[in-house]
């Protein structure tokens, strides 16, 4: 048995240690806000924070999480920066289908936590791993700047 901390709560996990964190979150813990998109770290929809750093949960074996704190889209709103990003996303109507947006918001929140006033290059660098098939990128960029100003 592995124990992990997600959104401030401790869970005992029955899945094998090599199981990706993504599937533990979704299928075992029922935290389905974190999405599956590609399984090979190409799309970023599975992005969560591990000790505040944006991580592709499809590539992180649950056994390697250890004592680090996992934050998902369900929990990021309790951080100041996470709540600001979520509000910016609504203020600017960034979202369309919304499936990728948990990952976008987690990536944006990690960016803003590390860099409170990112320029376009910093946004490109932090966000280019997160795909959006609806094509909301123009508003994602505006949303990050809006959250940075708020």
């Amino acid at each position, binding site marked *: 048995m592995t124990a992990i901390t997600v959104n401030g709560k401790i869970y005992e996990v029955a899945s094998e240690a090599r199981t990706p964190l993504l599937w533990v979150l979704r299928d075992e*813990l029922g935290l389905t806000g974190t999405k599956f998109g590609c399984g090979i770290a190409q799309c970023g929809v599975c992005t969560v924070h591990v000790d505040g750093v944006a991580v592709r949960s499809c590539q992180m074996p649950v056994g390697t999480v250890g004592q680090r704190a996992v934050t998902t889209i369900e929990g990021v709103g309790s951080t100041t920066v996470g709540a600001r990003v979520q509000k910016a996303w609504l203020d600017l109507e960034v979202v369309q289908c919304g499936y990728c947006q948990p990952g976008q918001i987690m990536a944006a929140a990690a960016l803003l936590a590390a860099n409170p006033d990112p320029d376009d290059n910093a946004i490109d660098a932090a966000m280019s791993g997160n795909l959006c098939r609806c094509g909301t990128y123009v508003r994602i960029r505006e949303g990050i700047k809006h959250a940075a100003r708020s």
Partner: protein
Amino acid sequence: MPLDPEERRDGAGRLSRRSLLRGGAAALGGLVLGISLPAKRARADKPRAVGAAMNAFVHIPTQGSVSLIMPAVEMGQGVYTSQAMCMAEELDIGLDQIEAIHAPPDREHYGHPIFYVQATGGSTTTMAWTEPLRKAGATARAMLVSVAAAEWNVPAAELVTERGVITHTASGRALSYGEVADRAGRLQPPTDVALKSPDRFRLIGTRARRIDTPDKVVGRTVYGIDVIRPGMTFAALMASPVLGGKLDHVDEAPALAMPGVRQVVVLEDIVAVVGDTTWAAEQGLCALHMTWSPGANASLDQARLWADTETASTGPGVTVRKEGDAAGKLAAGKRGAGTLIEASYELPFLAHASMEVQNCTVHVHDGVCEIWVGTQVPGYAQAGAAQVLGIAPEKVTVNNHLIGGGFGGRLEAAPVVTATRIAQKVAGPVKVIWSREQDIRQDMFRPLYHNRLTARVENGRVTAWHHRVTGPSILARWLPPAFKDGIDSDAIDGAAEPPYALGEMLVDYVRHENGVPFSFWRGVGPNSTVFSVESFLDLLARKTGTDPVTFRRGLLERNPRALAVLNAAAAKAGWGSPVPQSPFGRRTGRGVALMHAFGSLLACVAEVAVTDGGDVRVTKVVVAADVGRVINPDTVVAQIQGGVVFGIAAVLHNRITLAGGRVEQSNFNDYRLLRINETPAIEVELLSSTQSSGGIGEPGTVIVQPAVANAVFAATGTQLTRMPLDASLIARSV
């Protein structure tokens, strides 16, 4: 882990025994706020319509939110908000007072006014549903008001309604909708209600906030893939690598030996592994060695697919439109007057690649079937599952969900059929999830299309025009009544009625199918026809030494609405000014395109930079649009912005190719979507319009593709005719 069968329906009981950390919370450090309880899940059991039914779309409970049933599904395009706006406008309630409910399969009530079947697609929701939904709202309001009028013994005309309250101003009396709903629901609905005049609109035409997004930004939205059922297992599947092939042999033992694997389901054409988690099922599938009989498609290679379509395009076609004697005028060849120009444009197979992979949860039990899925065709899904099981459609319940990207990829029953075939062999509910690789390889693709255009240009005017479209017919299978006289009205949409004066015209269609599964894809027929027409017009302009915008203006003298859109885009983009230099590439260019399809008019100007190696970066996109009357202008802008990104991915990157009957692409590494760092500035100008509402989900995708290709033509002097753009053909030898 499998869920406990005895858990509560809302899932709240799950994990209570298993996942609570037993002791030692301190060992995990300081961030712990409490001991874990599972995320309480709303899941698929809600919402349901509650309250008295005024009609098929409006239910009003005694207290609480009004249930509005949504005939068109929400997949990002904003129609839950726009449909709610139409109903709420006439009902005089706020968008904060409603709950959107997914419509069940029910063609009688929710069948599409244009398609007849229950479907969301073709950018038709606003044009098809605005009036029926406004009527539904107005009818409900009239019924509610008539109860209050009778109770107070005053004329209904003296009553006013606002935010769900009926007021008689003269006497100061008021009743809420909820207080009169039960009585109103028993009334005979009036057959002719007056709709509001547009000057009284409070919602329609405003930038209303979307009703679906607050849940989406906190991870609370339940897409089909997020469904959890008590006792549910998870299935991963593999179909024949050669499209259409059958399974020869599989030894189930290696999968069954894997931890968390419960069952291997072997079908004629699919192997599925059922496990306690998606991951366990995937690992089980990976452990299997399967051998397949490739069947008839083993020799399908991309070069042959292109060539066969080209050959078919020279055969007999079905006439779609004939004005004068275009064929005769063009047959004179180079000896005739003016300039004769011919070109062909070829569009590849494309995958939908929605971010939410195909998935479907099915529970077959006791002679019934329950399905949880996000689908654009609830009725087809129901019928498909019923056919698999040999039961009546009424025995199949389809619980629809918000969709993580549709783009046409949820317009088929096939994934539901596949999941039902698997679930039929599984005890308890099973969630079947396609891997990204299976989602791409087993997709039903945007067809491969060939467009041959021939025109004669005399003194800057097109005097004869022949457009031949060659491709398969989706409608012949999907909506047979719409396939008339051998013509697929989708495949030729955009070719039959271009906005231009093109002289003597012949448009014809060659139906050609090639064994590769195909279906609708965002932009449908106009993706091929408009791309081809607009590319060809640039070729005509350049071959006759005319500026592409000037050339088009000359063909639009009798179409002021289209001309206004073209002029708006050209002005906003600074057409005629030098194209700015770009750090992305030394060669820069600007391209234009115009379309009239889906009932909307759009013009687009794109700027590109091309590297010496032939890589293309789109640096700026301007779109002007006349989409008729608008429900929610911000949604229109968002759909154009997103559609443009979708279209840029297609023209720069996307193609599905076959080798030996196998799809060569598999995931986002080789089926590239556009990324934020490749996304240009996108400026949208909406022209105010009182014309009928057009569609807007797809036009942005359609119009940007030829604009980009024409910009590359301008930047490089080379017109590429087979998509996506091939860097090697526009590389500059240094």
